[in-house]
């Protein structure tokens, strides 16, 4: 494990502000600094009086005007003239705001980032335009075969939860949202109690944290709701007949939340199966059989659940061969995942993470998410220790437990594909 010998990012500095906001500062080199704010405001918090679609639409409106910069244009002119880039987005369990600027501009950018999270204007006209734009994008995505296959897989897994909404369902929900829906979601979920703020900067960390604490002193409290825990669906196959050159397949299984005892072993399993050019799926389905250009397996975990997902675009007349080849690898890995494969997967994971440290935003993003999803930041040294404790037997164990035939869901979007056809391809 020579990868562990490389110089590592220095340990972060953590603090809980007097108002309860959890803060972390991470050192970095170079001329850039990054601010990342994460809030427990994902789609799974759209419960009770919160309307479906509110998390996504609100996240898209955060950067379209704040108290000091009341329009999207004013905010852009301010931050981009400084050399900054910024974004906001919602996921299943959280909303994040990230601002990256030349380090010399950090104080000004920090004030703007905090306003983006805490004081968006949510102007009526912006809400109307963004609602229309977002629903248009979702309808466009629903007609793209690869995206449609992904939608269908999520629907099979989590049919009654926001996690399983298709693009078309989300488009319909978004088009019904009003400004007041967004304001009430913001008031509840964007409070200081559930939030985390991370900063990566080449400037002294103590000083940076003191500035952050002063700038966030008046962050409102909020009253976060309890999230929905997604329930697994019973259907196992779905199809969408669409004009395309290729048939796009997604084979998925329910997994676990981040921080679950099996989560890190499942992460290694996903790399053994479908991470990089030496993974089992890449070698068998692409290199040996020539059935696809790209194929991968990914564990998508959040604070409330997770999914293991394999996707590929294959020739429609070789769909069965491709699905059979993938399932064969899934079944085989539970019996034969070797020490060598697991060592390589661990080296890839840790090596990539170490190399990403050359970008300041890497650790700001990671630490802020960790606080919201795991309760505290996980340092590189902790991550190394966690993965070094995992071996091939553990990876085989989780493969056998989570990738069983009865848990697999298959969705396909492509020319003339039928649900009956896809049902016939699902094992068990």
């Amino acid at each position: 494990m020579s990868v562990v010998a490389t110089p590592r990012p220095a340990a972060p500095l953590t603090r809980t502000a007097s108002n309860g906001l959890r803060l972390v500062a991470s050192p970095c080199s170079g001329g850039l600094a990054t601010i990342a704010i994460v809030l427990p405001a994902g789609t799974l918090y759209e419960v009770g009086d919160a309307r479906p679609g509110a998390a996504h639409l609100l996240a898209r409106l955060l950067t379209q005007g704040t108290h000091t910069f009341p329009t999207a244009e004013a905010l852009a002119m301010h931050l981009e003239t400084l050399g900054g880039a910024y974004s906001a987005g919602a996921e299943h369990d959280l909303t994040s705001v990230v601002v990256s600027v030349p380090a010399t501009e950090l104080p000004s950018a920090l004030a703007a980032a905090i306003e983006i999270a805490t004081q968006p204007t949510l102007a009526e006209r912006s809400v109307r335009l963004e609602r229309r734009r977002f629903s248009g994008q979702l309808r466009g995505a629903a007609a793209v075969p690869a995206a449609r296959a992904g939608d269908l897989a999520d629907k099979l897994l989590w049919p009654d939860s926001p996690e399983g909404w298709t693009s078309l369902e989300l488009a319909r929900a978004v088009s019904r949202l009003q400004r007041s829906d967004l304001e009430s979601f913001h008031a509840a979920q964007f409070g200081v109690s559930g939030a985390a703020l991370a900063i990566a900067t080449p400037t002294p960390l103590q000083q940076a944290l003191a500035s952050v604490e002063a700038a966030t002193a008046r962050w409102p409290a909020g009253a976060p709701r309890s999230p929905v825990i997604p329930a697994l669906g019973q259907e196992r196959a779905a199809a969408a007949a669409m004009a395309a050159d290729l048939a796009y397949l997604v084979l998925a299984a329910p997994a676990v939340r981040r921080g679950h005892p099996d989560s890190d072993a499942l992460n290694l399993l996903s790399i053994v199966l479908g991470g990089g050019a030496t993974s089992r799926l890449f070698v068998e389905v692409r290199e040996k059989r020539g059935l696809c250009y790209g194929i991968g397996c990914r564990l998508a975990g959040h604070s409330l659940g997770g999914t293991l997902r394999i996707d590929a675009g294959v020739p429609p007349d070789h769909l069965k061969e491709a699905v059979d080849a993938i399932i064969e690898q899934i079944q085989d890995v539970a019996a034969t995942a070797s020490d060598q494969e697991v060592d390589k997967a661990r080296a890839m994971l840790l090596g990539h993470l170490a190399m990403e440290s050359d970008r300041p935003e890497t650790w700001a993003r990671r630490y802020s998410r960790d606080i919201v999803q795991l309760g505290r930041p996980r340092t590189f040294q902790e991550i190394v220790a966690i993965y070094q404790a995992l071996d091939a037997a553990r990876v085989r164990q989780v493969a056998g437990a989570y990738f069983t035939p009865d848990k697999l869901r298959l969705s396909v979007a492509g020319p003339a594909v039928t649900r009956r056809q896809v049902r016939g391809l699902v094992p068990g």
Partner: protein
Amino acid sequence: MATELAVAEGLPEPQTATLPCGLRVVHMRIPGAVAIGASLGIDVGSADEPDEWAGISHFLEHLVFRGTRAYADSLAIGQAIEAVGGDFNAFTGKSYTQYICSAPLEHRELVMQIPAELVVRPALRQQDVEDERPVVIREIGLEEDSAGRRASRALEQGVWPGSTMARSIIGRPDALRAVTAKEVRRYWAAHYVPAKATLGLAGDLSLEEALELAGKAVGNWHPASAPPIPAPSAPAFQSNGLVRVETMEGRQETVLALGAPVGAWRDIDHGATAVLATLAGDGEGSLTVRSLVRKQGLLLNGGALAWLNRDAGVLGLTGSARPDGAVAAVEGIASVIRQLQQAPAGEDFRRAVGYARGEILRQWLRPLDVAIQLCHQALMGDTEYGPLRDLHELAAVTPEQIQRLAQNVFAPERLRLAVAGPAMDVARLEQALTTIPAPKRARR
């Protein structure tokens, strides 16, 4: 000035050297970087191909991963680098091909060796050709299913009719099905030679150490002998008027790309071009995003389009719209072009310069990105390299330059529109384009 900027931005400057075999090395030391990045680039791409071998540059780029002298197959290559936490890949462009590799710094020898193996000592066996051919044909399938790729391809055909630049980098299935290992080896022997190669390197190591490792990796590299290859030749596309349409049944989004040809890389004012592109479509404050996306809601997404290549480029705007709003979206894009032909407002100009500066800092951060950028600049024929050069060019740009450039590039007779999505009325799209007036030329 360069030193002042270097101090202000904390940026190192690249150094160059040439190995005894003739390979040019461009190196940038990044103190404290965890990773090392290397890119071995070759001055050949799809625009250099004979049309009967369309896609051979990209196919060769795939084939070398099937095995080399030191690594029997793709699995052996992958295991060597992935087992130490590294990464490797390659990409082909219109005029060059780059083989890239990165890993934590202690594996620097391997990071140099992998691209060298791929470029200097590939196996290129007939069985490799048979195994890789279906993979690339699947990649063509992915491109056919992508509205963005099809709009880009249509715009290339519109702005470069009769040119090798109009050919898709990935090639055509008919040409790929016919190509043999013998032909690929001839193509490799003709182009993969030290005189056409550049090694870009970045990480926390000295130039001396970099040169020693590079020399060891490429070894005694000398051109292989092979029969001459056919000269580059252009595909047969009709210029087909102002608008090219790619119809994609069932789609609910229309992708638009409006662009005009610009000159070869060496003839472009890069600072002014970067500011013009940023003013037009890069960032939330750009004219396209703030006006067409945010204020008017005509585009679902939008941005600048700047394809700058060794021999020819395209500058323009791109975006997507609801199919029933495509004509209004083109009218909106035309209005942005009209605005660009005026002198930029002071705050717009300052935003564009500020944002472009930030982008330079973000692009020159990770060692692998830096290695790719260094290789790119050298293969484009630059003689000065690095972020400081880019910042320098940016600092010299004036609003008057931007206006002149916009007026020259976006003259109506030079503009072409490409559209991909459900069936649409071409005449109405053409009509929307006529709202772009011929600008009054600014006096020099």
